C-alpha cells in the first residue's frame, strides 16, 4: 500500500497563467531545454559546443531562426571557465541567473571553478552540461566525466536527467533552486540521448521537492514577532554605538534599499564586507566602507568601538573575524539577519537573530520603530565615526616618482564617480579597487570574494557589460590574474563588448609577495614575474583592441589624461599601467589576528589608543590561510 506523491507538480506561480502556447506539441528534448530557457527570460547563453551538447546548440540555432524578434544571444568564450565567469558577471550585475552551456567531459570539468565560485558567493547561475548517452554512462566513454559527482560537492544543487519525461520540469526547477532561499548555482547533466528524445511539451511543471518548497515557504512567511521586535529595540535602546555590518546577502537578497532606509531612519553607521560593497552608498555619511583583513582602518576601529553589532547578510568569515572571540570585543550584543539558518551561530553566538528575507526584516524593524516612536540620538557616535574617517583615511606616498596603484584608482574614481560597474581579479589590485572606488549602487562591484579566483575579472566584466550595455564596465586586473583567462580579451572584441580593461602591472603576484614579505622573510618563491616576456599591449592589439596603451612606471603626470581617454573610448579598451612593484595593501589584519593587531603601513595614521603601532613580525608563519 505504498503512497507516493506526484513527481511533477504545478507551483502556485504557474496557476492561472493558462496553458503554454506550445503545450502539447511534440518536441525534441533539446528544443524543450531552449524553450524553457526562453520562458525563463534568458536572453544570453555563454558557452562552448562539443559532441555531447550538439543537439542543444542546434536547437538554439533553430530557435533563433524561428524567433528573430527574441533571439537568444550565444557568446562563445576562449575557455569554458570564461563562459562561467561571464555568466557570473551577468548574474552578479543583474540578479538574474546567468546561463552557461557546455559539452561533456572537459567542457564540464572546465566549469568546476566558476560553479564553486558562484556557490561560495551565493550567486545564482545555471550550467547545462552535455553528457554521453545514458547507455554509455559508466563505461569510461569518450569525453565522459562523473559530472554529477564532481559538481554536487560544489554547486547548490545538481541534476542528472535520466528520465526525459522530467526534462522540462528539471530545467524550470533548476531556476527555482538557483534563485530562491540562499541563491546559488545549479548544474544539469544532460545525456545526449535525452536531448535527442522526442516527447510532448507540457509547458509547465516543476519537480516536487517538498522539503525545499516547504522550507522556502516558511522563509517567505517569516516575520519578526512583536516580542522579538521589542527585544531588538531594547538592545538598540541600551546601546550607544550601534554598527551595521552588511554582507553580500544584502546584495543577493535585493535588500540594499531597505538597509539604507534602516540606517538613515535610525541614524546607524555601517561597514560592509568585500561582498557587501554597494549595499550602502559609499559616498554617504553613514558609510564606513569595508571592514576586515584589508578593510579601512576607520572601519575596523568602528568595529572595535561599537557596542551593538547588527550583522545583515554577512557571516563572520575568517577574512572579517580572523580571531573570532576578539571580533567586535566591545559589542554587548550582536543581532544577525540572514536567509540561511546555518549561518546563525555557525561562527559566533549572537543575542538576536532572524532567518528569512533580510529586506523584509529591515523594513519591519523600520516600521516598528516608526510605530512605537523609537528615538535614540546617535549623533555623538556618528561624529565619532566621522572623526575616525577623517583622522585615519586610506593614504599612500603621494610624492612617489613611481605610479602608485592608489593614485590610478583615485583618479579613475574621479571620472566614474561611483557609477561604473567594476570587476576584479584576485590580489592586491582587487583590494585596492575595493578600497579606493566608490559604489553608489548594489550590483556594481563584482569580485570573487569567498573563492578568490584569479581570472575572474575579465570574463565577469564581459558578462556584466553584455547585461548592462549602457553602463561603464571596468575590469581592474592584475598581471597574474589576467593571464589566467587572457584568451577572453579576444571575446570582448569578437562580440564588440565595450569593456575597459585596466591592468595594474606590478610584474608579479603582488598579494603573495606581500605575504612573503611580511611572513616569509622576503623569500619570493614563485611570485616574481620580472623575467616574463608578455607584452600585454601587443596582445591586446593582436586581439583587435583599438585602444591599447601602456603607462610606464614613471609617467605619473600622464595618468589622469590617459584614464579619461580610456574611459571615453567607444568600444573595448585596454590600458596597462606599470605600477610600483613594492606597493602594499594597507591596512592589514594578519590571518588569525584581531583588529588591535592591525598594521597600517607607512602612510595611514594609526590611532594612539591602539598603543605602539603593531608590526607584523617577519617570521610569523601564516598557519592560517
Amino acid at each position: 500500500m505504498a503512497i507516493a506523491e506526484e513527481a511533477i507538480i504545478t507551483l502556485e506561480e504557474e496557476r492561472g497563467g493558462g496553458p503554454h502556447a506550445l503545450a502539447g506539441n511534440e518536441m525534441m528534448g533539446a528544443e524543450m531545454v531552449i524553450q524553457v530557457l526562453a520562458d525563463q527570460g534568458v536572453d544570453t547563453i555563454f558557452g562552448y559546443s562539443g559532441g555531447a551538447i550538439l543537439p542543444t546548440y542546434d536547437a538554439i540555432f533553430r530557435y533563433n531562426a524561428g524567433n528573430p524578434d527574441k533571439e537568444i544571444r550565444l557568446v562563445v568564450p576562449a575557455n569554458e571557465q570564461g563562459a562561467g565567469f561571464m555568466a557570473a558577471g551577468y548574474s552578479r550585475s543583474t540578479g538574474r541567473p546567468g546561463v552557461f552551456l557546455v559539452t561533456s567531459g572537459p567542457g564540464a570539468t572546465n566549469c568546476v571553478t566558476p560553479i564553486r565560485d558562484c556557490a561560495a558567493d551565493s550567486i545564482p547561475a545555471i550550467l547545462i552540461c552535455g553528457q554521453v548517452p545514458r547507455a554509455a554512462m559508466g563505461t569510461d566513454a569518450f569525453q565522459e566525466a562523473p559530472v554529477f559527482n564532481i559538481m554536487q560537492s560544489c554547486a547548490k544543487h545538481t541534476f542528472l536527467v535520466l528520465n526525459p519525461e522530467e526534462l522540462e520540469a528539471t530545467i524550470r526547477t533548476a531556476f527555482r533552486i538557483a534563485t530562491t532561499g540562499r541563491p546559488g548555482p545549479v548544474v544539469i547533466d544532460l545525456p545526449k540521448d535525452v536531448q535527442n528524445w522526442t516527447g510532448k511539451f507540457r509547458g509547465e511543471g516543476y519537480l516536487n521537492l517538498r522539503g525545499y518548497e516547504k522550507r522556502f515557504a516558511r522563509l517567505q512567511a517569516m516575520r519578526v514577532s512583536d516580542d522579538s521586535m521589542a527585544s531588538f529595540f531594547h538592545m538598540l535602546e541600551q546601546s550607544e554605538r550601534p554598527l551595521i555590518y552588511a554582507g553580500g546577502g544584502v546584495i543577493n537578497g535585493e535588500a540594499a534599499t531597505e538597509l539604507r532606509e534602516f540606517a538613515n531612519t535610525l541614524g546607524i553607521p555601517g561597514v560592509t564586507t568585500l561582498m557587501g560593497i554597494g549595499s550602502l552608498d559609499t559616498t554617504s555619511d553613514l558609510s564606513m566602507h569595508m571592514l576586515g583583513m584589508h578593510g579601512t582602518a576607520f572601519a575596523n576601529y568602528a568595529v572595535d568601538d561599537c557596542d551593538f553589532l547588527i550583522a545583515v547578510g554577512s557571516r563572520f568569515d575568517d577574512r572579517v573575524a580572523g580571531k573570532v572571540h576578539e571580533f567586535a570585543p566591545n559589542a554587548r550584543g550582536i543581532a544577525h539577519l540572514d536567509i540561511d539558518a546555518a549561518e546563525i551561530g555557525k561562527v559566533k553566538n549572537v543575542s538576536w537573530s532572524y532567518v528569512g528575507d533580510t529586506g523584509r526584516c529591515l523594513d519591519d524593524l523600520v516600521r516598528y520603530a516608526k510605530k512605537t516612536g523609537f528615538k535614540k540620538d546617535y549623533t555623538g557616535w556618528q561624529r565619532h565615526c566621522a572623526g575616525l574617517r577623517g583622522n585615519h583615511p586610506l593614504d599612500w606616498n603621494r610624492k612617489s616618482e613611481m605610479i602608485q596603484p592608489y593614485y590610478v584608482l583615485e583618479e579613475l574614481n574621479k571620472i566614474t564617480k561611483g557609477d561604473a560597474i567594476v570587476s576584479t581579479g584576485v590580489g592586491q589590485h582587487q583590494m585596492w579597487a575595493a578600497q579606493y572606488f566608490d559604489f553608489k549602487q548594489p550590483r556594481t562591484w563584482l569580485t570573487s570574494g569567498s573563492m578568490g579566483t584569479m581570472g575572474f575579472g575579465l570574463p565577469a566584466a564581459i558578462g556584466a557589460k553584455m547585461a548592462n550595455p549602457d553602463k561603464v564596465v571596468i575590469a581592474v586586473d592584475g598581471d597574474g590574474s589576467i593571464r589566467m583567462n587572457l584568451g577572453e580579451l579576444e571575446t570582448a572584441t569578437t562580440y564588440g563588448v565595450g569593456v575597459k580593461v585596466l591592468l595594474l602591472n606590478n610584474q608579479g603576484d603582488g598579494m603573495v609577495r606581500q605575504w612573503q614579505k611580511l611572513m616569509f622573510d622576503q623569500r619570493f618563491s614563485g611570485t616574481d614575474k620580472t623575467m616574463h616576456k608578455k607584452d600585454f599591449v601587443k596582445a591586446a592589439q593582436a586581439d583587435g583592441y583599438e585602444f591599447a596603451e601602456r603607462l610606464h612606471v614613471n609617467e605619473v603626470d600622464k595618468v589622469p589624461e590617459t584614464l579619461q581617454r580610456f574611459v571615453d573610448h567607444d568600444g573595448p579598451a585596454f590600458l596597462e599601467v606599470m605600477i610600483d612593484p613594492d606597493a602594499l595593501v594597507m591596512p592589514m589584519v594578519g590571518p588569525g589576528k584581531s583588529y588591535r593587531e592591525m598594521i597600517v603601513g607607512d602612510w595611514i595614521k594609526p590611532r594612539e589608543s591602539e598603543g605602539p603601532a603593531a608590526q607584523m613580525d617577519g617570521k610569523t608563519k601564516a598557519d592560517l590561510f
Partner: protein
Amino acid sequence: MSSTNGAILETPSITKHVLGVLVENHHGVLSRIAGLFAARGFNIDSLTVSATEDSSMSRMTVTLTGDTTVIDQIRKQLNKLAEVITVEDLTEQGLHIERELVLVKVEYSPEKRTDLIEIAAIFKAKSVDMTPETIAFEISGSQEKIDNFLTMIAQEACITELARSGVVALARGSGGLRKSFYAD
C-alpha cells in the same frame, strides 16, 4: 561581552544523537548526503538508507556523536539540501525505538561452546550458523545491548567476522517523520 563568545570555540557536552532524515527517492541522494558529511568533516557513527511507507521517499538514519553546536550545524546543513524532506533529532524528541541488526561469527574452542550459547540466550541472540570451529549469531537491539553482547562473547571466543547494519530508529507513539512533515 558575555553574549558574544565564539560558537566554534565552545566545547559543550558531547552526546550521541540519532537523526531521522526523509529524502526524495531520487538518483544520487545518498551520495549527496554522504558527500556533505565528508566535505564538512562531520564524523558519523552510522548511516542507513531504506525504503519507506511512501515509495517517493527514502529514509536515512544517521547516528553521530557531538556537541549541540555541531549537531545543530549538521541539521541545518542537511536542511539546505534540496532533496531533504525533513530532518529530526529523535534523541532530542525523547522517546524513540532504536535497533541495529548484527551478524557476528566467532571461532571457539569446544569447551567454550555452552558458555557462548548461554550468553546468546541471555541477550536473546540467535545462533544462525555453526561448524565445529565457528558459530554465527544474529542479534538485534539497541547499540548498547549489542555492544555489551559483543564484549561478552569476545571474552569467550575470537570474533572473526562482524557485520552491523547500522541503526534504524522510529519515534515512539503516534508521531513520525512523514506525519509531522505533512502536519504543519
